[in-house]
């Protein structure tokens, strides 16, 4: 089996054997890291971010900001950087050529080879990546929160994380996922990116995307699959709780709304940047590394506020040179409920716009908040019941993130104890 990822580069897992790892980290300067960096280390180490082997150097960041390319010319839209304060660099005497031991949850996690220590104008980074310098934009705010220096260099995971239930059964490395697709005999796989519990509008988005993806292939065997890829990262108050997102997507298959052989639920660790079109390209790269062939993009993909036109994330794919991206965008409009058609239908087909009823986010959230079980045309009963169950079991009574959830939830992954 071949494991060729984005940019035509082989997917390489940068993970040390336990015995070698203990030896390798002896005497290294420890540097504690935060959740975002820990998640990105996992992504780099297992090849989710192929061809990245570590955090970006200045030349990479410059290329990404100015031309949407890494220094080696490979398409890449969002900087992946390791930030650190000048004080910490001075205090620990960190210099180029050093190796650092990155620690998380007070455990060793990875080795960072300090190839380059550099600065970068954060306003410029924000403007180039997000198209704005306003700190109301969450991606811009994240950029401004970076410390004043960056370290570029390779990462090696020394202590593989243990993914905690209920997420453990949904975490696959790119290699594992490709093996899974091969076992299923899928030739085409379409990604559904999500941070939501699925109402029927989402279900039909996926079903429509599956039909588009399957296209001209023969129908006797299942050659096409839908991969739900939930983004798990830093949570904000009011987001859906991660457990509900993942489990409710999975129940769509378990309850038969998708056949067992056409649907798979998975997670990727990533802190949303809300970069709209740039993030759409990033998601496409990520999913091409996972072995997917198609990626569905709906209205306002990864957008926020009114920073991007709802279809900017569709149009950006027209500017990507042939061969730079090994995954096809499936561009779709919304599905709505039409009382004349009497069904949830595609807005690109139904001619009753003036009667249409939209799946507005506010309305859906309000229904869930109130626990009023809606008709099965809005939420499948199994899904709605499970949202309520997840709220009790994981959300301290709420399907949405609260302060208590932020403080007391079970972490998505833990680092095992490690002797060294």
């Amino acid at each position, binding site marked *: 089996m071949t494991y060729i990822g984005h940019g035509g580069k082989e997917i390489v897992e940068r993970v040390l054997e336990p015995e070698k790892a203990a030896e390798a980290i002896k005497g290294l300067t420890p540097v504690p890291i935060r959740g975002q960096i820990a998640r990105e280390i996992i992504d780099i180490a297992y090849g989710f971010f192929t061809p990245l082997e570590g955090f970006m150097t200045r030349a990479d960041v410059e290329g990404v900001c100015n031309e949407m390319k890494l220094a080696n010319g490979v398409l890449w839209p969002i900087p992946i950087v390791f930030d650190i304060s000048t004080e910490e660099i001075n205090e620990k005497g960190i210099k180029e050529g050093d190796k650092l031991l990155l620690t998380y949850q007070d455990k060793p996690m990875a080795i960072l080879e300090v190839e380059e220590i550099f600065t970068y104008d954060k306003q410029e980074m924000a403007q180039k990546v997000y198209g704005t310098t306003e700190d109301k934009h969450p991606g811009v705010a994240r950029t401004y929160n970076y410390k004043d220096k960056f370290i570029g260099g390779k990462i090696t995971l020394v202590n593989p994380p243990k993914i905690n239930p209920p997420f453990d059964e949904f975490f696959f490395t790119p290699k594992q996922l490709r093996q899974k697709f091969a076992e299923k005999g899928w030739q085409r796989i379409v990604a559904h990116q999500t941070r939501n519990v699925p109402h029927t509008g989402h279900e039909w988005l996926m079903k429509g995307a599956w039909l588009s993806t399957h296209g001209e292939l023969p129908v006797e065997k299942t050659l096409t699959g839908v991969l739900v890829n939930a983004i798990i990262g830093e949570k904000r108050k009011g987001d859906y709780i991660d457990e509900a997102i993942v489990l409710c997507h999975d129940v769509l298959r378990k309850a038969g709304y998708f056949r067992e052989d056409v649907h798979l639920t998975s997670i990727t660790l990533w802190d949303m940047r809300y970069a709209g079109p740039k993030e759409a390209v990033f998601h496409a790269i990520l999913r091409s590394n996972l072995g997917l062939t198609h990626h569905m993009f709906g209205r306002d993909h990864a957008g926020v506020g009114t920073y991007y036109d709802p279809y900017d994330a569709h149009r950006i794919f027209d500017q990507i040179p042939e061969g730079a991206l090994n995954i096809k965008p499936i561009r779709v409009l919304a599905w709505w409920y039409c*009382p004349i058609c009497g069904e949830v239908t595609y807005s690109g087909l139904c001619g009753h716009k003036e009667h249409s009823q939209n799946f507005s986010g506010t*309305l859906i959230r*309000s229904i869930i908040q109130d626990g*009023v*079980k809606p008709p099965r045309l*809005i939420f499948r009963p199994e899904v709605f019941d499970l949202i309520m169950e997840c709220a009790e079991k994981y959300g301290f009574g709420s399907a949405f993130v609260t302060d208590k959830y932020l403080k007391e939830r079970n972490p998505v992954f833990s680092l095992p104890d490690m002797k060294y």
Partner: protein
Amino acid sequence: MSITINIWINEERYEKLQKAGLANMAEEALAGLKVIKVPCTEEQKDKVLKVFPTAKYDSATTKSIELLPREVKDKIFDLVVEKQSIDVMDDFLKNY
């Protein structure tokens, strides 16, 4: 547009409304789910937000009070059925 509290009406609640002769109060919202829009004055809104600190007023889009505790909305619905009217906020707020 006036300020409202949206009470969602599923089949179960719709039956109660029908029995109370109030079925016509409910407007179509989405795919058979209906809604009763209980009106609030500016003063009632302010009091609701004060009494229930989790609640938020969505001034930008829906002009509705959101994120009220579930029991509160249930109580308001029961009051509507009992009073056979959507003008229940004065009555409701009396207890707070």
